[in-house]
């Protein structure tokens, strides 16, 4: 890589002159902000702990996988999910205050959906946890709009020319979730087993789920 990611950031002219400190200036700034807000009684550090733990440990792609597996096995749930993603997720006890609308888009052999946030990095946190780093990169956010077919192919998902690609931009209050196609070879799997095969990337729309060998889950 041509760039060194660990160069010093000359930010806002805030230089502390503490070259020996082993923490980046962002760590210092963040701690200062938190400490100030706690002193002012505005936030409770214990609550910050809880929020971080929740997003690191409790919510993740497994949450979205539960939604997908349920939709694959329960057509009525799927209909409700496509009609109102947030309400359907709430049935499974999934949700959170950050999402205002959740629009679930279904992949078919003819239509492939993929999600992006062109302006920042909006992501369906409540169902997928925190976004992968590449999702936030300038490259992904610009190229998925400009040349989705090419980028998807580069990411390991070449699509036939007759497959229509729909790129959903999460800039407004709407968050999107891709409902991937249920792969062949999964007829005999239980909902619990299906959950295991649904990947995060398939729910972003940058991957398809591979055909499963019956009786194997590799």
């Amino acid at each position, binding site marked *: 890589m*041509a*760039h060194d*990611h*660990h160069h010093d*950031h000359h930010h806002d002219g*805030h230089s*502390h002159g*503490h070259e*020996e*400190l*082993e*923490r*980046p200036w*962002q*760590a*210092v*700034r*963040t*701690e*200062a*902000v*938190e*400490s*100030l*807000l706690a002193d*002012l009684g*505005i*936030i*409770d550090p214990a*609550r*910050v*702990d809880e*929020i*971080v733990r929740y*997003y*690191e440990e409790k*919510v*993740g792609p497994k949450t979205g996988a539960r939604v997908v597996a349920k939709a694959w096995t329960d057509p009525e749930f799927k209909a409700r999910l496509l009609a109102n993603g947030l309400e359907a997720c709430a049935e499974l006890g999934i949700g959170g*205050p*950050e999402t*205002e609308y959740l629009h679930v888009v279904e992949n078919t052999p003819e239509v492939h959906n993929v999600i992006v946030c062109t*302006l*920042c*990095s909006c992501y369906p946190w409540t169902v997928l*946890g*925190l976004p*992968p*780093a*590449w999702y*936030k*990169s*300038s*490259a*992904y956010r610009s*190229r998925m709009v400009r040349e989705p077919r090419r980028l998807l192919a*580069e*990411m*390991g998902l070449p699509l036939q020319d007759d497959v229509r690609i729909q790129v959903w931009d999460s*800039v407004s*209050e709407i968050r999107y979730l891709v409902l991937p196609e249920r792969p062949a070879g999964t007829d005999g799997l239980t909902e619990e087993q299906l959950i295991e095969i649904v990947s995060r990337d398939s729910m972003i729309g940058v991957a398809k789920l591979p055909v499963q060998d019956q009786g194997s889950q590799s």
Partner: protein
Amino acid sequence: MSGTSQAVFEGAVDLGSLEFREPWAARLFGVTLAMSERGLFTMKDFQHSLIAAVGDFEKASCIRDEEEYYTRWLEALSVLLKSRGIMKDEMLSATEERVVERLLGLQHERHHHHEHSPGRPDVIAPLVVA
């Protein structure tokens, strides 16, 4: 073909797990959500601020990793806190000085088991498969 973008993309890291790579980013994320819970701003307000910070940065550069991304997040939160009159520059600077003092003290104490690595762990996986 945008050779630059391509190189940039290869530089993007994949989290693999959902843990924050930078501990400060986790706190920052938590502080932001905690503030919105308390009604000091909505996540939509924050999003507007983040969009502005990202947009400014991308006029001259690209976001390539977690650090660059969450740095924009930190800028966005700082701007929002200032514009809402919640936090003033002088207060922040003074607090930062105290934080630095404290961290240097801790660092000194920990000197014997000096495990901290400033670099990223070697779990970075190239996303793009040719």
